[in-house]
């Protein structure tokens, strides 16, 4: 693996690039001039440049020193007194190990594989496959040979009548029900006394069969050309299951069911399939653990998968290949058997784990490998060192760092990737919300200056889009038409107003306005149509009244009682959105209906001498939206947001699917938009950070004297222009320290992305820890890495703060 070298190169380039960016006046000042209004970076003095260059040069050269590691294999060879090939090994519940091989070889071991006894042979044929269930041992061989051993009885032959059958694997379904699969669709069933040929399709070769040990009726068969069969009734009927498209033409070579809820299969090339019995029974839905092959496994093919539990998976294959995954097949660590004194022609045939820590592997010429045992000949259970896999012996810390700094760097880059986008999107969300929150746009302003636009939207754009979406039977068409129409009108509106040479009115639509005497009437009609909806031909647009009543009825059908109703939004999200929309329309529509041309406050008397005056026209819709958003994201834990966004609403998948057509063929974008976990992680971080950044920015905006707004407006700038040109640039300068704080928080919070399986720094640390068991070293390195990132960020922010300081604004 050349990860380390590649990454130090990458580090090299990125540090240089970053340095050039920071010291180059052009690039960054353009960037900041956009946000802050003035150039901020001045050229460094020449001497400082040289010193910084030197430090960076030294750092790069130190960091790329690569130490060699001593690697010891976790497997050892057992001396045996036989030299037949051992094709199959199996462990029983009585801590016995059995091996079967060439010319009817049967061996067993009672001490975890430390010593083996050769038993008397019963048959002459090669024994190639075995299975064990509840005291029954079943072994099959060439030429239709099948032998079995029930409880403590001896071995009995139960050969298949057809001598020419080519058996691939046997499986025990229950005490008197055995299955055999083989090439050309061969399925034989033994019912305790007789064999019956159950072949129903002879087009495909079957490679492996497995039954669920807990629920013995569930079984799966896999074979060439991506074939998977599944049964729910102990093999009476088999159903062909659809396979993921990537493995449709691949040969699935091995299969293992580990419980009611999970089964794994592997193709010759190394694609790993998993079936999780959640919505359906186990075996009926399959997906790939990863779309990519886990290793560059180009010489030789796999032949076996051994699943210890749902996270620990071992695969083995030709050319002495053994690899272990400790994260459910996402990443594999290869075991280097070449360290062992094995013959050149050694072939690994089978591998079985007694428990999570002890295993036995069998191969050609009577070779048996076992995992390291302690001095008493037992697997040292609980000591992960004796996992039986490649153990690395680090002579010193330098070796450890040399080997794993690449991993760290990979994690660090992944962290930086989500952090960078998280900061950018978070800031955009934050600043938008902050403007929303401080916007003085009340309901009155909205209706006064945008009446014409609102009328056109409700009476033309929305109905047209709805008609199109219903006619085309696709929501997307409707949304597309809505945006298309709105955009066209907006552009036309802008052009006409620009031509108007400022003597015309900026409000209204396309230079036209509803005459003063009709305004009140139009507002009332608008309110009415929002309240009760509009019938359009055969379609109908539901108004807020219908939306609210319909959704309330739907909620009552959820059968929630009392306080349980707070979970109703999750019970029926689309209806909840309807309800929200209904309420959001209800208030303005009522107000519009009551409009009489002046926007007075309403006086409500609730007792004799107490009146409250409220003015609903002062309601600020934008502010409400921003408040709801920040309330949701600031009052829930980030880790739950990660889980909910990624697994709950699968935001990554939604983005991937909706953008798939647009980014197709664009190299970098296609990569970014196909990584669901990455997208989800960015979204969760940005959404959360946006809510906090919004509050920070809002505070800063509030700190700008109101006179600045007045001054901006008095020279004729619009509200948004004043915000953009005067208020925000000053506000950002004020809130650089708290914003910096928020960004540092975002970097640290990014470690939570590991809960959705994003391989960032912390998760990488966990993986390194699981492989090396160097707990202090690993987590220490992770900590230092985080510190370096956030500290650098803080330094940059400090620098920006100093550079953007304006004389006369704020105390030093």
């Amino acid at each position, binding site marked *: 693996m050349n990860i380390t070298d590649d990454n130090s190169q990458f580090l090299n380039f990125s540090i240089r690039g970053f340095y050039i960016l920071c010291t180059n006046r052009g690039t960054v000042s353009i960037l900041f001039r956009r946000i802050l209004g003035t150039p901020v970076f001045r050229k460094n003095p020449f001497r400082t440049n040289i010193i910084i260059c030197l430090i960076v040069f030294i750092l790069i050269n130190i960091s790329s020193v690569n130490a060699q590691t001593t690697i010891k294999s976790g497997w050892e060879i057992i001396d045996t007194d036989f030299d037949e090939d051992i094709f199959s090994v199996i462990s029983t519940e009585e801590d016995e190990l059995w091996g079967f091989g060439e010319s009817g070889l049967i061996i067993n071991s009672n001490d975890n594989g430390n010593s083996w006894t050769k038993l008397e042979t019963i048959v002459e044929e090669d024994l190639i496959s075995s299975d064990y269930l509840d005291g029954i041992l079943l072994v099959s061989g060439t030429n239709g040979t099948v032998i079995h051993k029930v409880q403590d009885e001896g071995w009995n032959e139960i050969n298949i009548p057809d001598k020419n059958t080519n058996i691939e694997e046997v499986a025990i379904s229950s005490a008197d029900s055995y299955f055999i699969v083989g090439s050309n669709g061969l399925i034989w069933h033994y019912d305790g006394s007789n064999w019956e040929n159950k072949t129903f399709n002879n087009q495909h070769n079957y490679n492996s069969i497995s039954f669920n040990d807990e629920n013995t009726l569930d079984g799966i068969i896999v074979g060439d050309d991506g074939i998977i069969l599944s049964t729910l009734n102990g093999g009476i009927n088999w159903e062909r299951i659809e396979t993921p498209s990537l493995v449709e033409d691949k040969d699935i070579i091995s299969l293992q069911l580990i419980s009611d809820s999970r089964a794994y299969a592997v193709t010759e090339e190394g694609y790993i399939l998993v079936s999780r019995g959640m919505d359906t029974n186990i075996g009926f839905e399959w997906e790939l653990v990863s779309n990519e092959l886990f290793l560059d496994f180009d010489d030789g093919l796999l032949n076996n998968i051994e699943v210890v539990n749902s996270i620990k998976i071992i695969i083995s294959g030709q050319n002495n290949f053994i690899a272990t995954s400790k994260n459910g097949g996402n990443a594999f660590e290869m075991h280097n058997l070449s360290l062992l004194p094995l013959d050149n022609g050694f072939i690994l045939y089978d591998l079985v784990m007694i428990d999570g820590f002890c295993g036995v592997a069998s191969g050609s010429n009577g070779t048996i490998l076992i995992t390291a045992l302690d001095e008493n000949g037992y697997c040292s259970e609980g000591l992960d060192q004796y996992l039986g896999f490649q153990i690395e012996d680090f002579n010193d810390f330098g070796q450890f760092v040399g080997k794993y700094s690449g991993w760290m760097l990979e994690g660090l880059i992944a962290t930086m990737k989500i952090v960078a986008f998280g900061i950018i999107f978070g800031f955009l969300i934050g600043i938008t919300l902050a403007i929303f929150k401080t916007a003085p746009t009340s309901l009155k302003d909205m209706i006064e200056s945008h009446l014409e636009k609102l009328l056109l939207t409700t009476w033309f754009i929305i109905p047209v889009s709805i008609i199109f979406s219903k006619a085309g039977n696709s929501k997307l068409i409707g949304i597309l038409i809505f945006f298309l129409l709105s955009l066209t009108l907006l552009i036309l509106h802008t052009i006409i107003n620009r031509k108007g040479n400022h003597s015309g009115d900026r409000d209204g639509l396309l230079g036209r306005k509803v005459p003063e005497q009709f305004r009140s009437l139009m507002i009332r009609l608008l309110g009415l149509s929002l309240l009760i909806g509009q019938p359009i031909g055969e379609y109908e647009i539901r108004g807020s009244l219908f939306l609210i009543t319909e959704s309330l009825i739907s909620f009552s059908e959820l059968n929630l009682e009392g306080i349980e109703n707070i979970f109703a939004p999750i019970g029926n999200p689309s209806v909840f959105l309807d309800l929200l929309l209904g309420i959001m329309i209800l208030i303005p529509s009522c107000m519009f209906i009551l409009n009489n041309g002046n926007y007075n406050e309403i006086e409500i008397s609730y007792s004799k001498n107490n009146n409250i005056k409220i003015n609903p026209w002062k309601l600020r819709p934008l502010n409400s939206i921003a408040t709801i958003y920040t309330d949701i994201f600031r009052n829930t834990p980030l880790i739950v947001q990660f889980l909910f966004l990624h697994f709950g609403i699968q935001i990554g998948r939604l983005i991937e699917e909706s953008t798939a057509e647009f980014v197709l063929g664009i190299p970098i974008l296609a990569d970014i938009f196909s990584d669901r976990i990455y997208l989800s992680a960015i979204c969760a971080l940005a959404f959360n950070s946006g809510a906090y950044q919004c509050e920070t920015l809002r505070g800063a905006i509030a700190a700008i*004297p109101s006179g600045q707004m007045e001054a901006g407006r*008095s*020279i*004729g*700038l619009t509200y948004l222009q004043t915000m953009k040109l005067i208020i925000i640039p*000053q506000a950002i300068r004020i809130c650089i320290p708290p914003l910096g704080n928020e960004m540092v928080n975002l970097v640290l919070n990014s470690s939570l992305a590991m809960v959705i399986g994003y391989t960032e720094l912390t998760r990488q640390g966990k993986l390194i820890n699981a492989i090396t068991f160097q707990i202090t070293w690993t987590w220490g390195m992770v900590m230092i890495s985080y510190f370096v990132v956030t500290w650098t960020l803080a330094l940059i922010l400090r620098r920006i703060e100093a550079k953007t300081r304006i004389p*006369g*604004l704020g105390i030093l």
Partner: protein
Amino acid sequence: MNDEILNVKNLSKIYPGGVHAVKGISFKVHKGESVAIIGSSGSGKSTVLRCINRLIEPTSGDVILKGKKINIPSADINEIRSRIGMVFQSFELFAHLRVIQNISLGLIHVRGMKNDEAEKLALEVLQKVDMLDRKDAYPGNLSGGQKQRVAIARALAMKPEILLFDEPTSALDPELIGSVLENIRALADEGMTMIIVTHEIGFARDVADRVIYMDQGIVAEEGSSSIIDNPQTERMQKFLSTWD
């Protein structure tokens, strides 16, 4: 009546808290006229000024600029404001922009001028207020008087039809007032239409063509600048006596 620039009719403002700041005042401003509004604190002077360019929405009454009513919803307030210059008591320069940028900002973003065009105009206006040598300074590095002169320049650059001064010298040290007043006087001599809310009675007398004395939200006395020397009403006499 062709030269009538501003007509304020029966303007009144009640603040949300119930404070009746302006109780129906009316006056007219003609082209080239400078009108001084004097009165004690809290008499509603600043409110009137802010109502004129709708920084504060008047509760009732009309504001008519060049024959066009401007306090109606359909009026394009941004366009109107760009024609009404305003100078604030506390300067309100944009602290993050240099002097020259302060002035050219409105020209670029409201008038839609090109950068160099705007800069040229800004330099002209700066020359007028004698601030050309500080064009690249930040407002924070200017003295109070200089700030106010830049603020005047900023308002002037928009070539307003009427210029509103909201107590332009109240925040200044006595020795700095002179230069600012000098600038305003020069503008008046050039024939700029102005409304000046001020506490500088002497200045009002010298510069203003007309003086409006406001007390408790109404116009208590109105007339040519000579009324400062010969106040007719008792209230104004009392007010003026505190200034001597």
